[in-house]
């Protein structure tokens, strides 16, 4: 299972179309972010450090505690949103605190 997303590394203002897959063999389990066109690995996120940000209704915005503050994955569309929540179940509980 994989999902499509818009990826920003939080270091430069470039948005890249990406495909995200889970590397279950890695320790800790990693979310591998691939360039959608070339399949080149753009980044690897510790899947357990991913959390949801506040976003508009039609979008999931995912950040990571172990990455730069602006690093994001933006997921839109019902199928991709379902896949993302399926791959990263901790997103259901890992919402950013409101305080």
């Amino acid at each position, binding site marked *: 299972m994989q999902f499509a997303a*818009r990826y*920003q*590394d*939080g*270091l*430069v*203002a*470039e*948005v890249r179309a990406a495909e995200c897959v889970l590397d279950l063999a890695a320790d800790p389990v990693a979310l591998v972010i691939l360039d959608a066109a070339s399949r080149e690995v753009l980044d690897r996120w510790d899947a357990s450090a991913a959390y949801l*940000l*506040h*976003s*508009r*209704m*039609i*979008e999931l*915005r995912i950040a990571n505690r172990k990455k*730069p*503050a*602006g*690093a*994001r994955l*933006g997921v839109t569309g019902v199928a991709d949103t379902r896949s993302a929540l399926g791959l990263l179940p901790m997103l259901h509980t890992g919402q950013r605190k*409101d*305080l």
Partner: protein
Amino acid sequence: MAEASEAARVGRVEFTGSRHELFLILIRGYALMLPTIGLYRFWQATWKRRFYWQNTVIDGEPLEYTGTATQLLAGFFFALAFFLPIYIALFVLSMQESSLIVLGYLGVGLIIWFLMGYAIYRARDFRLSRTLWRGIRFDQRGSAWAFALRRFVWSILFVLSVGLIYPWMASSLWKYRWRNTWFGDRKLEIAGNWRIFAGPYFAVYGLNILTIGGTILWMTSTGDYRHAGTSLLPGPISILAWIGCVIILALSCCWYRTRSASRMLSTVSLGEAKLSVDIGAGPLFWQYVAYVVCLAMLLVLLLVTFGAVLGSVYAVAVAAGKAPGAVALLSLFQSSTLNVVLLIAAYLVVLGAFGMLAELILSYGWWRLLARSASIANPDSLNSIRSAPEDRSLIGQGLADALNVGAY
């Protein structure tokens, strides 16, 4: 989302938020404001900003607000500590002789006016430093004290020149704000100057002096007025003329606001990327019309509710065998804790309803209008911008909350 062209791609700006969504945020906010003695407003402000920011989509990527309510709350407490000596000074002043009171209040008024400039700048700094786009943070640099001083001196010149100096004042303050605004490691530029404001401003200034002055002149020369005690009331034709003046004033102000904002913002650039804004005056005018109509409807609703409550109380009084007179009715509203609580609650409901209406129609309307009329030429040139660290200062926004200045 983005239109490709051979020369330079143009990135569109969209606004995807609905009034219904904002209404729910506001209703929840006002409902929680009462039990939290107003402290929930910092959470409400944060939710509102999240709503506006995340629904503003620039070239396919939404803005993100990362500020939190506790940051606003902490800033507010700082500001309270800052204002405590001023409030004590006001209290001591109120017990002095009258000439000293006038001078003292004038001095405090000037200090607060100066501080408002500081607060406006720091509030903008707070908002920008907690705004991300494409994962990169904005920032406001420059000195808030320098901005406050600049604004203060311009304000004095504005009063002395009967408002004629406004284009130079507006241009100076806009330039200071925008030339100290950064996106990541790149500084924004603004090429606009006083000429952009001068045309629309003097046109509006002259037109309104002509219409209002002409109406007064016509009224006095034709004698179309009558005396009511010590005041003058306009006659039937003068009333029509005054209504015309108000419509012209509203239309011309809308035209000035949209024209000056469109032209000034269209001179903002970030390296190779250029902002373009074209806001129509008509939609803004109709927003104000809708606001006035809704306000009138709300007032009628409140009056009807008040009448119904009064009627019920009167009926209860009659049923209890009390004399059905005004004195008896008034006596029901006296000396009761419940009545005081009800009065405060009614006051807060009225205040909240007016605030909500202004937010839903005017603030939301202006933001959506501005967003939907904007576009960015050559947005791909922004890809190389690098991030800068977050400014974590708090007190600036707190001062803005204490003085009730700043927008959104």
